[in-house]
């Protein structure tokens, strides 16, 4: 039992170990997940503990990882696959869309695909090209999937347990920038968190800030900064992007009348668009100010010398919130 506070990535390891112990149909697979324990150490120690038949190093091919995962899942196992970095997920898209998301649908429930695809996600760690991408939007227009992103050690643990136990495929994106940002007490009690709710991290009455993943930090900081100026911001961590719990967001916007959405993906057709669209559809008459999106620019995240200028910052969030507050 972990009496010590742990980081987000340690919480992931803890959840994997818990479920590997509890459910023998769970296997972990990916590149370097075995003896090496993963390039981020997410699977550190698991090979020693569970052996190479539970923790599989695959050949270097993401198509292979995706295909094997779907094959195993559809024959009764619960594979937890890892894509080494966000930018290497693209070859997996075909299997995710054509098979994982449709196995149950296509076979009218005869076969299912209970799998998790874990992927270190997002920028801000001074990594090489393709190691810093926020590509969650690709999966959010795909029915049959769940797209989940934790933003704290506790949620990382609870949501990963839920993802593994979920009878359907889950894309579990891990904000790598906050892998080791801070520690939290995360009891290893096997308690999963629900995958169908947005988490209200801070109550507020003037404005609703909606975000997910690594930007939760900057958004909470922005709320602090706004508080100093007497502005009360409610902060929502979406956590499960799809299927979306819009009710929680709608309730908040009904209360505050203002909404700023923060994400690090490019703005155009990022998932923030869906939330803004829902607000325009369902909360129009609650709105006192235009919805704003604070996002990455509509360009690729640059190599690391400039990447922090690409990402949303506390400053940018505060500025957007203040613009919204100027309406009344």
């Amino acid at each position, binding site marked *: 039992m972990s009496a010590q506070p742990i980081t987000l990535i340690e919480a992931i390891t803890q959840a994997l170990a818990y479920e590997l112990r509890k459910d023998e149909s769970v296997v972990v697979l990916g590149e370097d997940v075995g003896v090496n324990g993963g390039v981020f150490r997410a699977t550190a120690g698991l090979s020693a503990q569970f052996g190479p038949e539970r923790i599989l190093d695959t050949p270097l091919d993401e198509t292979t990882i995706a*295909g*094997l995962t*779907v094959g195993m899942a559809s024959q009764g196992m619960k594979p937890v696959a890892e894509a080494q970095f966000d930018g290497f997920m693209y070859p997996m898209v075909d299997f995710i869309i054509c098979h994982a998301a449709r196995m149950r*649908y296509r076979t009218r429930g005869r076969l299912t695909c209970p799998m998790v695809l874990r992927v270190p996600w997002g920028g801000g760690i001074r990594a090489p090209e393709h190691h810093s991408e926020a590509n969650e939007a690709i999966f959010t227009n795909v029915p*049959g999937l769940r797209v989940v992103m934790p933003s704290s050690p506790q949620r990382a643990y609870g949501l990963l347990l839920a993802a593994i136990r979920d*009878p359907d495929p889950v894309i579990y994106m891990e904000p790598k920038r906050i892998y080791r940002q801070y520690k939290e007490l995360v009891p290893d009690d096997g308690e999963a968190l629900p995958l169908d709710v947005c988490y209200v991290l801070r109550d507020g009455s003037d404005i609703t800030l909606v975000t997910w993943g690594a930007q939760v930090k900057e958004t909470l900081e922005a709320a602090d900064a706004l508080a100093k100026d007497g502005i009360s911001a409610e902060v929502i961590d979406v956590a499960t992007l799809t299927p979306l719990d819009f009710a929680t967001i709608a309730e908040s916007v009904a209360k505050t009348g203002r909404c700023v959405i923060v994400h690090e993906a490019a703005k155009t057709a990022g998932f923030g668009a869906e939330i803004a669209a829902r607000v325009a559809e369902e909360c129009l008459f609650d709105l006192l100010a235009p919805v704003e999106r604070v996002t990455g620019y509509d360009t690729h995240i640059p190599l690391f010398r400039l990447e922090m200028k690409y990402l949303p910052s506390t400053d940018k969030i505060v500025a957007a919130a203040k613009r919204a507050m100027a309406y009344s």
Partner: protein
Amino acid sequence: MSTAAHFDIEYLQYLKPDGSLAGPLPPAVPDAASLLPIFKQMLFLRTFDGKAIALQRTGKLGTYAASLGHEATHVGIGYSMQPEDVLAPSYREYGAQFARGVLPRQVLLYWGGDERGNLLTGGPAHDYPWCVPISTQMLMASGAALSFKLRKQTKVAVAVCGDGGSSKTDFYAAVNSAGAFHLPLILCVVNNGWAISVPRKAQTGADTLAQKGIAGGLHCLQVDGNDIIAVLEGLRRAHERARNGEGGSVIEFITYRLHDHTTADDARRYRDDAEVKAAWEKEPFLRLRKFLTDQGVWDEAQEKAWLEDSGKRVDEEINAYLNTPVQPVEAMFDYLYAELPSELITQRTEAMAREHRA
């Protein structure tokens, strides 16, 4: 300066196009009589195929992919498998599926635009559905085989693609992973000469499709796919290897697509009549009938009776298909998730209300 590696690809043929034997029967076929049930399946399949095409031509079925000419390979694949094995077909191996118990009406439902075809009623519940994205089933089957190996189950995954499908990266990923993990996987490449309009030789510079298995260290074999004996023997060897933990195989079955690619295709646009005519000389059915007749285990009377019986059974299946009520609109939402998320319940309710208004 020295040789790092060396490979041979064996070719199997026992029953020549004229129905005579090229040599002694292999272990897979103890005697002529043992081929009778398979022969009958082939005949049934041909009956089904013809009637399905007719159904499409009269607007009662969507696009349909015939299996004319592939019967020996398809039926042989199904017949060689154990019920607990897993079949990952492409979209035309009805012969393999019927051999596994699948009701023909399922084929019609599927091509008739109804997901319930994929229930594969009558067959093993763990078999894969038809697979439209070419060769993805090959890699999925490798995953299935990996799951067998990890759980120490004595089962074999059998996947089928075409000559075109052997160009697909997923096919290579299946070869590579089966080799890396030493899996009980049989990759069947049904080389029927064409991938829609693209001839076999435009797919690859390789002399055989079987040799693609060398890339992953798999057992490779090329067989005459119109010779049921070679088909069964090639598969017997591959199954034996798989069950003995000797790893995966690639088998190339050389056959010919005697029909258009599908009913939506017109092969006259791109291939010579002469080629098709020549292929009819080598097709799998006539040579087998000749052999069985010569061996005294089959005759015209038997054939007539069986054909009649087959026709009747296919008609029953067609009727069952035609009488299957269309799924209600809410079927669109069924089975999307184990439990429908609340947002989708709203959409489902809306769709149903719209339906009742209409």
